[in-house]
C-alpha cells in the first residue's frame, strides 16, 4: 500500500522505499497470491515488491494469465504436433494467435477465447468486450480481422436468469461485432442447468494477412520507442488491484469505485483497426501487442521478455481518463481498445501522423534499453524494476492432483438401454417434432438475426449452415471455412472421447462445405482445477484432443483455458470447445447448406449404430444423461471429409448437412426447414429399430443432396474411397415423408422449429 506522509499526502511506493521497508505488510492474499508465491516474488527481487510490482505479479501470475494449473497438460499439444503438422504454421501456441500459410502469399490467423465470468456479472458488456479482446489478438498478428463467431452456453431456456443473461450476451456480441463491421458466421447456443450460474461466452475471430505483414509481439532494437495508442487508460476492469486502491483512497475521498467488468467502445476499436492496418502497410511497426487481460502489465512484460530484455516506461506519459490513478492501477487497468507498438525513432513522426489521421490518441511511453530489467517510473521515481521474464513467463506451475471420480462408473453404467423407445408411426413423428422444437435443437434465428452476417461482402455461408464460409478477397475465389463445436454432454460421460468427438464434429462441419480442415483453436472451459475430478476431466480432454489432432494431422494453433466455472461445488459440464479452420480452393464450388433442388436425391454418407447414450433424444424425451458417448473413429471421419472435398470439387453435391445432435431426424428437419421443401425418404438399411435409426448420434455421417446426373459419379467415388453410403430418397413436395412414420408438413415444421426461442425470449 502507498504510504501517507505526515501531511496526509500519499507518496509513491518506490523501489527505494520497498528496499527500505522490508517489513511493510502487503495484501498479497487479497490479490490472489498464495504465501509461497509471494515469497517467491521477494526471492526474485531480493526485497519486497512495490505496490506496482505486486499488482503486476499478482495479475500476471493469476490462473487466467499464467495457466499455472493447465501448463503441464497443455504441453501435450506441443508434444503431439509433428514437423509435418507444423509445415504451414507461421506462428503457433504462445503467440497472440496461430497463423497458417494458405498459399499465394496469403495467411490466415484465428483464435477462440473465453469471456465467461464477466458475462455473468454484466452480460452485455462482458460479451461485448469478449469480442473486442479476441479481435485485438488478431490485429496484433498484423492481420485484418474479417469475421467472428461465438459459442454461448447458458442455463435452461425457461430459467429466470437466462432471460437476463442470454439477451444481454447476444446484444453485447451483436453490438460490438456489428459496430466493428465484422460478419458473424454463427456458432453455438447451448442450454444446460450447469451453465445457469456460469454462462460461457467463447468468441472466435479470424483475420487475413499477407505473409510479409506478419507481426509478432517483441521489443527489440535498443533505442526503439514504445508507443501506447488507442483509448485512454481508466479505472475500469481493475478487479483485484482495487485492493491496493482502496488502501490509498479511503472513505470520503469522493472517488467512486468503477465496475470490475470493462466497458467496450466498438467505434474506438473500429478506428483502431483501420489505424493499425495503415501503420502496418506503411511499415511503421517493429513489434506490436494488444492490451487485454492485465493491461500494461502484460503488454510491457511480454514485449520486453520476447525482445532483448530491457525496457523503460514512464507512466506519466500514459494518457489517462481518470485523475489520481496510482501506478498499480495504471499498470492493471483493463481499459479496452488499446494497443502497444515498438517503433524505430525515425518512424515515430510518421506513426503519429497516421494516428492523427484516424483521430487515435498516441503517446511515446518508453523505449527499449540495453539493460536486463523492465523499469517503470512515475513522477520521476522508479516504481517497478523487475526481470520481465519473471513476470510474463516464470510464474508458478502446479501439478494439481487429479483423479477419476468414483461416480464416473455409475454414470457410464446408467445407459439408455432401459429407456422406452417409440415404435408407432404417430409416436415417432411426435418425437421428431418434440426434438425439433425443444430448446436444445430449436432454430437459433432469434439469436443470429441480431448479428450482421453480410458486412464486407465476402460471406458465402453463415449460420444456420454447418460452417461459415468466407471469401478471402475479391480478387481470388480462394476461401476459408470455420466451425466451432462441443457436445459437453458427451464430455461428461467420457471427457477423452468427448473432446475427440468435439474435434470430429467441427471437422465434419467444415467438411460439409467441401473445405479441407487444416488447423484447430480450442477454448477449454472447466470447473475448479482444485477439484481432482475436474482436473481429471481436463487432463483427459486435453490428452484426447491432442492425440486426435495428431491422428488427423492438423495442429492446435492456440486457444485458451477457463477454469473455476462452477457454482459452489457444482462444476459446469466439461466443455472443450473446438474451432476448426478449413481451406476452400474455390468458394463458388462450396457446398450449400441444407437440401438441394426438388428432384435431387438424398444420400446418407456414413454408418449408423445404435448409439443413443448422451443423445439429444435421451435428454429431451427422457431427461436422461448416462452411458457412453458414440464411438469416434477419426480415420473414418477423415475419409468422410475427403469424400466431401473431392465431391465438392467435382460439383456432385447440391446440398449438405452433417448429422450431430438429434441424429438423422433432426438433420432432415433442419434441411427441410432451411430449404422450405419436403422430401420422401426411407430409413438407412440395416436392422436398427426406427428410433435408433432416427435419433442415434453416431459420428462421421453426412446428409447430402445429389442431382440425378451426379449420382453415378458419387456412387463411384464412395466405392473407391470405401465410404459407406445409402440413397434414402428424393427432395420435393410440401411434406417430410419418412418411411414408417407419419408425414410431417414442412410449413408446420417451420413453425415448430422457429417459434421456441421467440416464445420465451420475446417480451
Amino acid at each position, binding site marked *: 500500500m502507498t504510504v501517507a506522509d505526515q501531511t496526509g499526502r500519499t507518496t509513491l511506493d518506490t523501489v527505494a522505499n520497498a528496499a527500505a521497508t522490508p517489513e511493510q505488510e502487503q495484501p498479497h492474499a487479497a490479490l490472489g497470491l498464495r504465501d509461497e508465491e509471494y515469497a517467491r516474488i521477494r526471492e526474485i527481487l531480493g526485497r519486497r515488491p512495490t505496490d506496482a510490482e505486486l499488482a503486476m505479479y499478482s495479475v500476471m501470475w493469476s490462473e487466467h494469465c499464467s495457466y499455472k494449473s493447465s501448463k503441464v497438460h497443455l504441453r501435450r499439444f506441443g508434444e503431439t504436433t509433428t514437423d509435418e503438422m507444423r509445415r504451414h504454421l507461421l506462428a503457433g501456441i504462445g503467440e497472440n494467435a496461430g497463423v497458417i500459410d494458405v498459399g499465394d502469399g496469403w495467411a490466415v490467423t484465428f483464435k477462440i477465447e473465453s469471456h465467461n465470468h464477466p458475462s455473468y456479472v454484466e452480460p452485455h458488456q462482458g460479451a461485448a468486450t469478449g469480442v473486442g479482446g479476441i479481435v485485438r489478438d488478431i490485429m496484433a498478428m498484423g492481420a485484418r480481422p474479417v469475421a467472428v463467431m461465438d459459442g454461448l452456453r447458458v442455463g435452461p431456456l425457461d430459467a429466470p436468469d437466462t432471460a437476463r443473461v442470454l439477451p444481454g450476451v447476444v446484444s453485447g456480441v451483436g453490438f460490438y461485432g456489428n459496430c466493428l*463491421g465484422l460478419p458473424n458466421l454463427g456458432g453455438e447456443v447451448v442450454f444446460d442447468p450447469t451453465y445457469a450460474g456460469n454462462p460461457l461466452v467463447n468468441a472466435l475471430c479470424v483475420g487475413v494477412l499477407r505473409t510479409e505483414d506478419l507481426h509478432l509481439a517483441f521489443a527489440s532494437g535498443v533505442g526503439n520507442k514504445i508507443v501506447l495508442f488507442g483509448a485512454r487508460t481508466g479505472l475500469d476492469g481493475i478487479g483485484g488491484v482495487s485492493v491496493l486502491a482502496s488502501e490509498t483512497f479511503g472513505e470520503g475521498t469522493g472517488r467512486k469505485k468503477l465496475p470490475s467488468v470493462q466497458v467496450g*467502445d466498438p*467505434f474506438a476499436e473500429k*478506428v483502431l483497426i483501420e489505424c493499425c492496418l495503415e501503420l502496418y502497410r506503411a511499415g511503421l511497426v517493429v513489434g506490436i501487442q494488444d492490451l487485454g487481460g492485465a493491461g500494461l502489465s502484460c503488454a510491457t512484460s511480454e514485449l520486453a521478455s520476447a525482445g532483448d530484455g530491457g525496457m523503460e516506461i514512464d507512466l506519466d506519459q500514459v494518457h489517462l481518463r481518470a485523475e489520481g490513478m496510482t501506478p498499480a492501477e495504471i499498470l492493471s487497468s483493463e481499459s479496452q481498445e488499446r494497443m502497444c507498438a515498438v517503433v524505430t525513432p525515425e518512424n515515430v513522426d510518421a506513426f503519429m501522423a497516421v494516428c492523427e489521421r484516424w483521430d487515435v490518441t498516441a503517446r511515446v511511453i518508453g523505449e527499449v534499453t540495453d539493460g536486463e530489467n523492465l523499469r517503470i517510473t512515475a513522477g520521476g521515481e522508479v516504481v517497478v524494476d523487475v526481470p520481465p521474464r519473471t513476470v510474463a513467463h516464470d510464474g508458478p506451475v502446479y501439478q494439481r492432483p487429479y483423479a477419476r471420480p468414483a461416480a464416473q462408473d455409475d454414470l457410464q453404467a446408467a445407459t439408455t438401454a432401459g429407456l422406452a423407445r417409440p415404435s408407432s408411426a404417430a409416436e415417432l413423428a411426435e418425437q421428431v417434432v418434440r426434438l425439433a422444437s425443444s430448446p436444445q435443437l430449436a432454430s437459433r434465428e432469434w439469436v443470429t*438475426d441480431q448479428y450482421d452476417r453480410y*458486412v464486407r*461482402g465476402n460471406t458465402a455461408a453463415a449460420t444456420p449452415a454447418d460452417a461459415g464460409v468466407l*471469401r478471402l478477397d475479391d480478387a481470388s475465389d480462394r476461401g476459408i471455412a470455420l466451425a466451432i463445436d462441443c457436445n459437453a454432454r458427451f464430455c461428461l460421460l467420457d471427457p477423452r472421447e468427448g473432446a475427440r468427438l468435439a474435434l470430429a464434429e467441427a471437422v465434419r462441419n467444415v467438411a460439409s462445405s467441401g473445405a479441407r480442415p487444416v488447423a484447430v483453436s480450442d477454448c477449454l472451459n472447466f470447473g475448479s482445477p482444485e477439484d481432482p475430478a475436474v482436473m481429471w476431466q481436463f487432463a483427459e480432454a486435453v490428452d484426447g484432443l491432442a492425440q486426435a489432432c495428431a491422428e488427423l494431422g492438423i495442429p492446435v494453433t492456440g486457444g485458451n483455458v477457463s477454469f473455476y466455472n462452477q457454482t459452489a461445488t457444482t462444476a459446469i459440464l466439461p466443455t472443450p470447445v473446438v474451432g476448426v479452420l478449413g481451406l476452400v480452393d474455390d468458394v463458388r464450388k462450396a457446398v450449400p447448406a441444407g437440401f438441394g433442388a426438388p428432384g435431387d436425391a438424398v444420400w446418407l454418407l456414413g454408418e449408423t449404430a445404435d448409439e443413443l447414450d448422451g443423445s439429444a433424444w435421451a435428454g429431451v424425451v427422457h431427461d436422461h444423461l448416462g452411458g457412453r458417448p458414440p464411438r469416434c473413429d477419426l480415420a473414418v471421419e477423415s475419409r468422410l471429409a475427403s469424400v466431401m472435398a473431392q465431391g465438392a470439387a467435382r460439383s456432385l453435391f447440391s446440398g449438405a448437412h452433417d448429422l450431430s445432435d438429434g441424429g438423422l431426424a433432426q438433420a432432415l428437419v433442419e434441411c427441410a426447414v432451411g430449404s422450405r421443401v419436403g422430401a420422401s425418404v426411407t430409413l438407412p438399411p440395416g436392422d436398427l429399430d426406427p428410433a435408433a435409426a432416427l435419433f442415434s448420434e453416431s459420428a462421421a455421417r453426412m446428409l447430402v443432396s445429389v442431382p440425378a446426373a451426379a449420382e453415378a459419379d458419387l456412387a463411384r467415388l464412395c466405392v473407391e474411397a470405401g465410404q459407406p453410403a445409402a440413397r434414402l430418397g428424393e427432395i420435393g413436395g410440401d411434406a417430410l415423408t419418412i418411411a414408417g412414420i407419419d408425414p410431417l408438413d414442412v410449413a408446420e415444421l417451420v413453425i415448430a422449429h422457429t417459434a421456441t426461442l421467440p416464445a420465451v425470449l420475446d417480451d
Partner: protein
Amino acid sequence: MSARIGVITFPGTLDDVDAARAVRYAGAEAVSLWHRDTDLQAVDAVVVPGGFSYGDYLRAGAIAARSPVMGPVVEAARAGLPVLGICNGFQILCEAGLLPGALVRNSGLRFICREIRLRVEADTAWTAGFEVGSAITVPLKSGEGRYVADEATLDRLEGDGRVVFRYAEPAPNGALRDIAGVCSTDGRVVGLMPHPEHAIDPLTGPGADGLGLFTSVLTRLTAAA
C-alpha cells in the same frame, strides 16, 4: 470514360468496401472520399454507405451530417448530383436535411438482420432500371431503422410519389406506413434502410437485385452525358 461514383468513408463507416464493390460491379469507377475532404473530385454521383459513423454518438448520423465532406455533398445534391444513402447513409441524409423524416430505434428494440422483400414504388435516378411495382430481395440490418415523420409529411411523400421503397410485408422495424426508402423532390437523392450493396452477387447475398440501383444511376448519367 466510365462514370466516377464517390463512396464516403467516415470513421466508423463499415459498408464502404461493399458500396465500392457494387459501383465496380455496375461498371463505374469507385472514388474514395474521406470525411475530412472538402473536394468531391468531380464525381458524377455519391454513395453514403452504412455503418456506425462516429459510433452513432449523439444520434445516428448526426455528427457525420456536419462533417467537412457533407458540406459540398449537400450543395451538389441541391444542384442535382445523384446521392444514395444506405442505412447509416440514409440517417445521415435525413440529418443533413436532404431527405425528410427520421430513423429511430426499431419497434422491437433489437438489431434486425434478415433478407426482406421490398416493393419499388417510384422512378428515381437510382431506380430507373426497375419497373415501378416490382419487388426486390435485399438484406436489412439495422437497430435504428424505423422510419418516422409527421402525418402531413407522410401524406405529402405518398402524394408526390416520393416513397421509393416499401417493405412488402409489415415492416419488421415498425417503420410508419412500411416505408423503407424515400427520395428528394427531384428524385435524385434517395435514402433507404436495407442494403442493396449486399445483394449484388448470389455468392454473398440473397441474389443480385440490389445491383439495379447502381446500374440505374449509370444509365441516367450516360443518358445525360
